[in-house]
């Protein structure tokens, strides 16, 4: 792995700015209200019980105090997550092997024994230019969602990497840096799970801050939001859709830092 002085580093941009640009700020604020008002409700109701006229045992009082602490902890966690989401993402770009990135992200997670992990890694990938810390967290967040979707019954997580050369121009969004042009080299990481899939009505919400289908307190609903922001900052592409055979397929496409080493080492004719 080599440190590469980036020619044109992605600008540090706060997520808040990005949300404003997308017109999603009010939804973000609404989501924060949800994450804070629910545990606040818990605290208010627990206080009412403590202040109420009904006699209570020491054991019951301790249980109510646990409700209070748990509510306060959730608010603290929500506020920390919000600050993390809104903080500018500073990037320090290095060239990295996508397969190493995947292994690092996987190692940061606990994979339940009920899940089988299948890897189909291409060996001739060119390196990708990434902020290692943020992109590892982003990939880990995609893995975590896939793993959670396969609980409690388990399943198979299939990770595939391959090189791609764009044969035609693919424009998405308004940022020219994010467009893939004919001849561009990219590395594609596909992450497939065999979980319950995503309901079509929920599909437009999956990258929305604080949106989650997990049970209360199990996930703040920020993993994919932050992952998408990180991928956008790298001018990459993250697409998520249901697989026809069941489960979800996430496709992460990142521009190559250079042409494959095998290509460069080919002898001249």
């Amino acid at each position: 792995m080599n440190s590469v002085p980036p020619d044109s580093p992605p600008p540090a941009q706060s997520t808040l700015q990005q949300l404003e640009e997308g017109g999603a700020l009010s939804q973000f604020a609404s989501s924060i209200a949800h994450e804070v008002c629910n545990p606040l409700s818990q605290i208010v109701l627990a206080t009412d019980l403590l202040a109420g006229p009904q006699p209570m045992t020491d054991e019951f009082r301790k249980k109510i105090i646990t409700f209070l602490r748990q509510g306060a902890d959730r608010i603290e966690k929500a506020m920390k997550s919000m600050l993390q989401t809104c903080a500018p993402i500073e990037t320090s770009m290095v060239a990295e092997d996508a397969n190493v990135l995947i292994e690092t992200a996987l190692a940061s997670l606990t994979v339940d024994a009920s899940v089988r992990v299948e890897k189909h890694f291409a060996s001739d990938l060119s390196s990708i230019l990434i902020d290692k810390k943020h992109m590892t967290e982003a990939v880990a967040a995609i893995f975590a969602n896939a793993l959670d979707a396969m609980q409690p019954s388990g399943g198979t997580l299939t990770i595939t990497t391959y090189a791609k050369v764009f044969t035609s121009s693919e424009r998405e969004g308004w940022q020219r840096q994010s467009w893939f042009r004919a001849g561009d080299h990219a590395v594609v990481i596909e992450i497939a799970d065999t979980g319950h899939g995503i309901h079509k009505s929920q599909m437009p919400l999956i990258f929305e801050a604080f949106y989650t289908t997990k049970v209360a307190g199990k996930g703040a609903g920020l993993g994919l939001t932050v992952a998408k922001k990180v991928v956008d900052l790298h001018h990459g592409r993250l697409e998520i859709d249901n697989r026809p055979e069941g489960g979800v397929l996430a496709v992460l496409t990142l521009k190559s830092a250079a042409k494959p080493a095998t290509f460069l080492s080919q002898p001249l004719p």
Partner: protein
Amino acid sequence: MSDSPDSAKKKILLIDDEPFITSLMAMNLEDSGRYEVREQNDSLKALETIMDFVPDLVVLDVMMPDLDGADIIYRLKNDARLKHIAVVFHTATVREAELHAHGGIISGFPFLAKPATTDQMIEFIEKHLPK
């Protein structure tokens, strides 16, 4: 505060994916001596519980996994056996999209914002219980 005989107690069903909230609400409401309370934290079992418990009033959360409050009320109001049951919302936030979901039907129902104290909740419930 005095305990009413069970037959005089109004039946309140709390549907919210937050078990701590329904548990605390249930304890506070039952302590008032006025209500018989049941909780349901799994939105997919909401209609089944309504049918089984036959509450006088349903206190329904809006944002829940699987079925949200709008989905539940849409199904309830389209079920001849259940459509007479009174429903109010208890929500941390109401989004524009949710307000207009299912033809705006959700906007026709009263809602109480979280956090609400027990006194506020009882006042709200009493106001909207069928007479």
